């Protein structure tokens, strides 16, 4: 490198020029749009988490267990999802259902989201449409591994996302910032 290049001055200035160029071009477009020019569209920043991007209805988000009309799980504990799960993150323990027509129900249905790879095979394998990944919830961080395990009750309490793709269940953001 020659002396001029070793000072980086020219490169720094050209970088600043690029950023400034985008800034002013976007500002111009936003001003033009607010003045009534509808086809002018500047770059958009989404103010997450107050604002959210619209989600595709096909997106695989946090699982939920579908309920019957009486609120009990639709799941019959056939363990197809547990069998197909490539991450082996589903743990089901079956028990006898009081109604012999239903035969079986899960006594325990845990998903360890710390292991889950969100492949969606469990949803595809389910013969009863009892597990879905349509809650629209993408944030389920936790401070410890134990809280990443979602139990049957927790999975049953989740609601499907609204038609706009927004979650209707409360997003499980951990309340404690410092565990």
């Amino acid at each position, binding site marked *: 490198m020659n002396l001029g290049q070793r000072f980086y001055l020219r490169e720094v200035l050209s970088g600043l020029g690029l950023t400034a160029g985008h800034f002013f071009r976007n500002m111009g477009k936003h001003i033009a749009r607010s003045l009534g020019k509808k086809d002018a569209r500047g770059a958009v920043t989404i103010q997450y988490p107050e604002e959210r991007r619209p989600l595709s209805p096909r997106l695989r988000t946090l699982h939920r267990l579908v309920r019957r009309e009486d609120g009990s799980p639709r799941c*019959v*504990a*056939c*363990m*197809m999802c*547990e*069998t197909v799960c490539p991450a082996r993150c589903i*743990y089901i*323990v*079956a*028990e*006898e259902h009081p109604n*012999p*027509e239903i*035969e*079986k129900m899960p006594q*325990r249905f845990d998903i360890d989201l710390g292991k889950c790879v969100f492949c969606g095979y469990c949803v595809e394998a389910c*013969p009863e449409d009892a597990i879905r990944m349509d809650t629209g919830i993408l944030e389920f961080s936790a401070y410890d591994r134990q809280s990443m395990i979602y139990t049957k009750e927790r999975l049953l309490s989740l609601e499907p996302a609204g038609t706009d793709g927004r979650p209707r269940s409360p997003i499980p953001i951990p309340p404690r910032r410092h565990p």
Partner: protein
Amino acid sequence: MPKLTIDGKEIEVPAGTNLIEAARRLGIEIPHYCYHPGLSIAGQCRLCMVDIEKTPRPTIACNTPATDGMIVHTQTDRVKETRRSIMEFHLINHPLDCPVCDQAGECWLQIYYMQHGLYDPRMKDEKVHKPKAVPLGPHVMLDAERCILCSRCVRFCDEVTQTGELGIFNRGDHSEIGLFPGADLTNKYSGNVVDICPVGALTDRDFRFQVRVWYLDTTKSICPGCARGCNIDVHVNRRRPHHAEGRRVARVKPRFNEDVNRWWMCDEGRYGYGFVDAPTRLVLPVRNDAGETRELSWGGAIAAVVDALGRTPADQTAIIASPKLANEDLFAIKTLAEARGIRQVGFRVPPPEPGYEDDFLIRADKNPNTRGAELMGLDGKVDKILNEATAHRVRSLLVFEHDLFDTGWRESDVRSALEAVDTLIFVGPNGSRTSDRAHLALPASAWVERDGTFTSFEGRVQRFRPALGALGEAIPTWEIVGRILAATGAPVTATRAEHWFRALAAGVPAFAGLTYQSIGDTGAMTAGTAPQAPAEAKA
């Protein structure tokens, strides 16, 4: 000996062999439900149709004896079409909820449907509903909707146990399996109807909904429940420990052995594996000094045993071996006794009450290896050992597996004998009142956790194989004894059960010439014993 051709392959079979068995010898499978080699022929399911040249229409293979010059085809279009139609009939009223059914994965309806089924059902009407989840007895649950009325279970109860609890009731598509009024499926072989049920109609109440069958691993083994030595498959769940409350042995199924148990086993053996995962299992060597328990390392435990044996002269030392031990363990104990000069060795302990026996499979002697211990000459008088102990003439006592309090002896006698000895050493898989009193309790592997052989009452040496890893620190009894021997300075080269078996074959004339290879899967007779006639169908 008729010679016939099946699918272009020629075979000669004994007269009277039916076409299913003849085809099986050629490796050709003819689908069937109602036919079972251990039962009479019913011809109910109509699935085993084959084409025989010079016969106008497909014929059932199960009820057609092979004749000379017969030319059989099992894969013609007409046969396939017939099978598909028969399957369609079988499935008219059968619920299509395989994932829920406990038989899924080992269901012949599922298997044949995938092979021969008509995938789009033409049946539009409502299926006939029948009782579901009906307990037939302590071990068997009936789902009449899933039944295809093959009548195997009915024939089993009529012909094998001759108890006749089951029958087919009602008519037409309302026919269903049921119990005769006042009867319960309580015979001692009732679990077999679950094995022979080709579909999910009869399921095991013990196993139902515990583990899916595709999570199970199978290991060939021998039932330790009585002196018969029924051949079994042990099904263990190693991959999904959250199922069945962590029990590793999921179930036991009989394994065919023409000379011992054929296709059957008794319920006592079938449901008798619970001790393997029981909370009473010993997992660590423990020293017990005046009520104070201390966990030991194996090195420390062996040193303590050797110390106790070293302090007591051989004529004040006694060993109570167990007929529940494998031949390898017993020979290691025999070697130890001979190396130390211990003469008071016994194994025979009276049971609290005489065992049930019948003329089919169940033997009164509930120990799998009494014959092996007898052949090795370990048959000293155990009550004499206890009397000597009470009189303070036995100061070190090794007890293997037995709970001496759960015997035909009076508890007070056993207690005074055990209290009189200076060092009581217990070796066994499960804790008991005896092990609680032991100064040293050493954990041994259970039979499913290790290799070994049992000698059945008729003198058949049969091999069992490890299905599981050991629980905790437990090691096989032959290894415990081997370590004690090595620590006392005796030369021990055996590092596997097979090495002890070789030493046994060399050291005890009855076992001469036997190897693990010659025993194989079906067992081999000890010298001087002839196989007895196989158990005939009757209980």
